């Protein structure tokens, strides 16, 4: 589904922060992306999300060479990828329901066509009672679940999560991990960027470890 070959990344004229990355992510797979702070996890996630171009190497996503994509092509491919940010990136002026519906609105769908689906997902992530609440009045855990719901509502083939348990207590962290595992079982490929060892010990999965700009894969 996704293939990196000898990918390198540098910012400006500085040294390469990521070097010779060669790996693949299969469909219907689960992996942790880990490494110390500043190792480049977020940069790698941004490349996976097409919001950062590599300075060298080849990235192939869904059988397309990303170097040849137009801006609109990238937008179309992003609809097959869901992303959960560490800082949630919810829109404060929209309700939880409206935030989660956003991927459908972007596709130009009528509300009647997706309302039931959004309500069902919000209930599944435990936000059924908070649909009309605005993000500033949600707790950290509620925001995280709303962000996850938004990332998965359009049934992406790939789900990327950047430190999804970074802002929540361990109990909620475990619940969120179970949510990701459930999504993986339903057919989504999942990449969770984290440096939370305890979280990774909870579930035996493939590990992509970034260290000094290079990637080591532990199957």
């Amino acid at each position, binding site marked *: 589904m996704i293939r990196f070959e000898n990918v390198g990344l540098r910012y400006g004229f500085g040294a390469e922060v990521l070097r010779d990355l060669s790996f693949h992510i299969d469909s219907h797979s689960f992996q942790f992306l880990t490494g110390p702070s500043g190792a480049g996890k977020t940069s790698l996630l941004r490349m996976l*999300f097409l919001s950062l171009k590599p300075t060298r190497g080849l990235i192939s996503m869904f059988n397309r060479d990303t170097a040849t994509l137009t801006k609109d092509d990238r937008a179309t491919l992003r609809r097959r990828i869901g992303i959960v940010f560490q800082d949630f*990136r919810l829109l404060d002026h929209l309700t939880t329901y409206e935030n989660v519906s956003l991927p459908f609105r*972007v596709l130009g769908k009528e509300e009647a066509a997706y309302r039931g689906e959004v309500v069902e997902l919000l209930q599944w992530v435990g936000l059924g009672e908070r649909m009309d609440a605005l993000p500033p*009045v949600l707790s950290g855990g509620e925001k995280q679940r709303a962000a996850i719901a938004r990332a998965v509502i*359009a049934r992406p083939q790939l789900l990327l999560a950047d430190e999804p348990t970074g802002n929540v207590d361990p109990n909620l962290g475990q619940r969120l991990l179970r949510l990701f595992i459930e999504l993986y079982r339903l057919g989504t490929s999942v990449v969770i960027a984290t440096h939370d060892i305890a979280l990774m010990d909870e579930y035996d999965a493939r590990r992509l470890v970034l260290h000094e700009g290079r990637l080591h894969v532990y199957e």
Partner: protein
Amino acid sequence: MSTSEPFDGAGRTWADRETASAIAVRRGLAPIVPSDSIAGRSLGAVVAIMTFLAALAAGAAMLVAGAANDWESEVAREATIQVRPAPGRDLDADVAAAVAAVRQAPGIGDVRAYTRKESAELVEPWLGSGITLGDLPIPRIVVVKLLPGGAANFADLRKALAAQVPGATLDDHRGWIDRMRTMAETAVAAGMVILALVIAVTVLSVTFATRGAMATNRPTIEVLHYVGATDGFVASQFQRHFLFLGLKGGAIGGGAAMALFGILQAADAWLTGTPGGEEAAGLFGSLAIGPGGYIAMFVVVVLMALVTAVASRRTVGHTLENIE
């Protein structure tokens, strides 16, 4: 964060916004780009004022051009023969000969020579009353009314006059007409320049306001990109606001300008017959701009709304190119 904390500068709290949003969910979705994040009110006022000025310039140019056209057609329907007194010649006989010479020519309607008394009245403001014209070499005027269709040939008329009355000259008012035409064209050109300047200021204002709105909403734009929005979708979210804003501001400004001309027209009708009204009528002709003037102002309103929409579209496009 507590729900009692302020949401905006208008004293609303997050709880109020939440209730409003809940209602919005039931009635329809809240706009992705919130209206209050766009500098709506101040930009609307700028567009309204600019449209008012542009419509005023267009209306005034139409008024002057119309008045000049009236004068021109009035002056062009007449020609004047000036018969100068010459030593050893009978002025009255020369005047009669001049009248006879032009009366037979094609394209000539009525020909009327000013009498001695009327000539004395013409110079009375400068020379005072009680002047005996016989004592002064004052020329006599013959007013020639031209038939519509422009059949009169001034070259032939001049030749005929020169043959029969040596001291007579024919003035076809061409100099006046040219000057008036130049004045009317200058007024219309000035109106167009003002319109162009107003459009330029509007474009700049809208560009700055759009950039400001996009900078304010940058987090929203980024999130839209993350959920797979194309630039076209993002641009449409902003353009909707600016098109509405342009139409609203344009309608207010254009409506005010139309109302002003309507009031002027009503005042003109009311003042007709009074000395002030006569002065104004003499200068401007009628103060009514007519349906053509109102159509021109309506065109200005549509033009300003389009300018607002196009300027914001271009700015949105340029800004989005730099946002990944």
